[in-house]
């Protein structure tokens, strides 16, 4: 019971004080879980992280479920995930109640502030396009994939603009390409 509460409060603290999403949270989670509480060895934490980032869903939630499950099973994963979710939920709920779309639209000061913020948000999304492209080690051949995906989703053509289509195709295509490459390499070494 005590550890369940500790799990909850640790992840609550992380959820309440980390800005900037999943990756910013990871290093703090690692510090709390591995260095401070010694709940998990670092190597095991890295294994859990590999799983959490491979799976779909919110990275911070995935890692809290993984850590909680590893320590205390189902109860542990619920406590840890609830801790991660609750701060965001409460803060955003308060904002949603007081800062309604009508207020943003009709209050002149707030409306001009948001007019300035919106183009900046677009910039904040362009930056990770470039960093993630570098991390994906795209070649002049594979760079076609993200460009085509982006334009097709943007095109709003029915079916073809569905992001889920490309997630599924990417997964299947990657598997086929990878196994074919392995076969070729095996044949090459013969």
């Amino acid at each position, binding site marked *: 019971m005590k550890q369940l509460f500790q799990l909850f409060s640790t992840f609550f603290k992380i959820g309440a004080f*980390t800005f900037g999403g999943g990756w910013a949270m990871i290093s703090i989670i690692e510090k709390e879980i591995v260095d401070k509480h010694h709940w998990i060895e670092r190597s095991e934490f890295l294994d859990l992280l590999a799983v959490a980032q491979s*799976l779909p*869903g919110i990275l*911070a939630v995935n890692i809290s479920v993984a850590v909680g499950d590893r320590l205390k099973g189902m109860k542990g994963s619920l406590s840890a995930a609830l801790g991660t979710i609750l701060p965001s939920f409460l803060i955003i709920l308060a904002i949603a*109640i007081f800062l309604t*779309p009508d207020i*943003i639209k009709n209050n002149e000061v707030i409306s001009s502030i948001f007019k300035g913020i919106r*183009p900046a948000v677009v910039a904040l999304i362009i930056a990770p396009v470039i960093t993630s492209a570098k991390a994906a080690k*795209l070649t002049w051949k594979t760079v076609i994939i993200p460009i085509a995906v982006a334009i097709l989703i943007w095109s709003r053509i029915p079916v073809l603009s569905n992001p889920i289509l490309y997630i599924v195709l990417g997964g299947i295509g990657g598997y086929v390409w990878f196994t074919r490459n392995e076969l070729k390499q095996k044949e090459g070494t013969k």
Partner: protein
Amino acid sequence: MIYLKLIWSYLKIGLFGFGGGYAMLALIEREIVGPGWITEQMFTDIVAISQMTPGPIGINSATYIGYVAPGHAGFNGIIWGLLGSIICTLVVVLPSFFLVTYTSHFITRHKESALIKGVFAGLRPVVVGLIASAALLLMNTANFGSETDDIIKSVIICLASFCIVFFTKIHPILVIILAGITGLIIF
């Protein structure tokens, strides 16, 4: 029934949201802005609010959209909004529980297998495309204005913000605050 539709949409977002918050945005945009539950401007505002508040963007957007969407569909009042935000937030994390608990052993065991390696090698370039599509989708009149004067100002803010974020170590929150102040002065 708006709540059932929200559940269906957020289930898809939770299940196919690979590649982190920004890559999820394209999916959220399609599922939420597409049917007209919130406007394009509101969507961008949520992204901005998510950046300025702690916590993952996936949770923040689920809570905010869950609160706002019922009102947009005619269910006005705090109770309907509260119900919506609880539902969306729970649904978007639900797949995580099952996937992390039931597939973690499989993934750890088959980390080096062709299946896992191949699938993620294939997803990597797609994720880049997903993030790029979110950026493209947001470059619209809702965010940049429709009059030449507004568009020019907006493009300048966008380019300046990009340079700050990309070339310096200034925190994105500070960039948003600066952009807001700039907006207050020039719009």
